């Protein structure tokens, strides 16, 4: 499990080395960035800032060679905002006095009807983290119903057990997104003050469990702004390298959400600029050519358009971050505010105008079920 390797890392030393990187280190890294964590360190460092244009050129070229003009489109479907954790940056946090809601079968089908009418074939199921009310029983009851309508199904909920993931894989689960939020244990403890999410190591080992259960794609992520994003990104790079080496049949993705305002939320400790986000995307593309990099609607329309060619492979459009939000928008149950509120039709036009090919379908669902 990754926690064993992670706990041997000297984080303070990594931080020191990262911030001591020089222009010479960056130039060396640019010559040999692929699969090289030392290079990743240099490319994430402040010393790489003057080289961001070069990194962007390389990243755009590599992404185009690997993925062509394709950009995958998906949509989140929020199943529930119930949560038994206390996380001070999240709108779903337990103590937040908001209306709580978990969708039943009829409500899910109503949401699916709207989502399908917009052309989506790849769905990301999202919930708060409430083990007893929205746990494996709920997911395994709802998943077969949802999978009938989508060829690709991803899950972004609380960490589950290996057996739990195996059950869901047999029902058609394709991908698991589980974000560590921050890889820095002290900061993690400060922001997660109640509930199962307090267990840093259990969360850290979730990608291992998902991969062992045969999940096709595993997504990592950090909430940029909780702590020093350069260091968090570097540690995520270590996590990714470990997983790729150990579970070679699994695909990987990363998400790079920046801390956004939410009801009762906190201000970012470390501000992440647009320049920083570009540096991060490009550094990871140079590290890993085949990595899926996802772009959320948290970012503004202008920035999203500019980021499209730089290394992004997947994005959502026309998202709602509240349970039942596609049928009934503005019910004020949101997890966070989105910045890009443009419809999928508009986004498709924007993508085509920039020479990209929006891809809605990229998998045939029955193949997975058939192989079980």
């Amino acid at each position, binding site marked *: 499990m990754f926690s064993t390797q992670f706990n041997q890392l000297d984080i303070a030393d990594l931080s020191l080395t990262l911030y001591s990187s020089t222009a010479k280190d960056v130039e060396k890294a640019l010559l040999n960035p692929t699969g090289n964590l030392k290079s990743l360190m240099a490319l994430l460092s402040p010393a790489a800032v003057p080289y961001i244009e070069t990194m962007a050129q390389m990243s755009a070229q590599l992404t185009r060679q690997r993925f062509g003009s394709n950009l995958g489109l998906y949509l989140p479907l929020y199943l529930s905002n119930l949560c038994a954790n206390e996380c001070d940056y999240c709108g779903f946090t337990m103590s937040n006095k908001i209306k709580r809601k978990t969708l039943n079968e009829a409500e899910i089908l109503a949401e699916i009807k709207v989502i399908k009418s917009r052309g989506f074939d790849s769905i990301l199921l999202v919930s708060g983290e409430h083990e007893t009310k929205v746990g494996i029983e709920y997911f395994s009851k709802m998943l077969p119903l949802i999978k009938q309508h989508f060829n690709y199904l991803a899950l972004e909920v609380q960490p589950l057990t290996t057996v739990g993931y195996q059950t869901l894989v047999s029902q058609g689960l394709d991908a698991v997104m589980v974000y560590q939020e921050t890889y820095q244990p002290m900061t993690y403890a400060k922001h997660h003050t109640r509930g199962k999410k307090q267990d840093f190591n259990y969360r850290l080992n979730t990608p291992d469990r998902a991969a062992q259960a045969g999940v096709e794609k595993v997504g990592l992520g950090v909430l940029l702004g909780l702590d020093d994003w350069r260091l968090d990104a570097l540690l995520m790079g270590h996590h990714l390298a470990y997983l790729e080496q150990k579970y070679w049949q699994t695909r990987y993705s990363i998400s790079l959400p920046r801390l956004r305002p939410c009801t009762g939320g906190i201000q970012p400790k470390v501000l992440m600029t647009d320049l920083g986000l570009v540096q991060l995307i490009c550094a990871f593309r140079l590290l890993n050519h085949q990595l899926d990099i996802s772009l959320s609607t948290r970012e503004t329309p202008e920035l999203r358009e500019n980021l499209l060619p730089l290394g992004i492979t997947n994005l959502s459009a026309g998202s709602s971050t509240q349970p039942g939000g596609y049928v009934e928008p503005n019910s004020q149950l949101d997890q966070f505010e989105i910045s890009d509120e443009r419809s999928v039709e508009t986004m498709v036009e924007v993508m085509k105008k920039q020479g990209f090919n929006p891809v809605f379908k990229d998998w045939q669902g029955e193949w997975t079920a058939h*192989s079980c």
Partner: protein
Amino acid sequence: MLTISGHQFSSRLFTGTGKFNHSTTMLNSIKESQSELVTLAMKRVDFNTGLDDILAPLQQLGVKLLPNTAGARNAKEAIFAAELAHEMLATKWIKLEIHPDPKYLMPDPIETLTAAKALCDKGFIVLPYIHADPVLCRKLEDVGCAALMPLGSPIGSNQGLATETFLKIIIEQANVPVVVDAGIGAPSQACRAMEMGADAVLVNTAIASSAKPEIMAKCFKQAVESGRQAYLAGLGDVTTNANNTSPLTGFLNTSITGG
């Protein structure tokens, strides 16, 4: 003319449909390439909504479709994809691709052989995408594959014919057409494969990811034709020494003439 399973092709350049920015670019590139066999990924075709922007234009173009099983991670998934292709496209032709490794997309020889046998037994015309492994090629031929598609280098890498030594053995031994697939990044590399005696090449990334796909498609067409002509004309032998027209024994000729 190239013949695969009784079907004749005047073009020895096969192309693909992935990675293009627009279906119009894709169609124009295929037209410029004059390719008559075009592969498409079954996982990408949307049969439910009828809004597919790959399949319909291709059918209008009149090229022969070669559905592929890209995305399949084992024999079962690939067989399922082939059956779906048969059902939806009414063709028994299938490009068999099985890659359990999402990083380099390396083909799985064991699963490919299993799937190839099962599909050949069911009457499919199987073109397997494989490593440039001469023994595997023999075995795939034995189970009834209609052609062999060994890779030049990792798919989409544009590294060219990194497997040249093994491709030569495969070409020498094969009793079915050999189509060099994957890794061909430049027209010169396609030309080289044809000069070596490959029956055809399949090129996708190098065309689709080019800044000017239509022009690049035409360049590949010309390169493949040149390579084929050169192969038929017979290339000179490669030697380490210069082979000039005045060998050391030239004086003997001179003396004979002079005498």
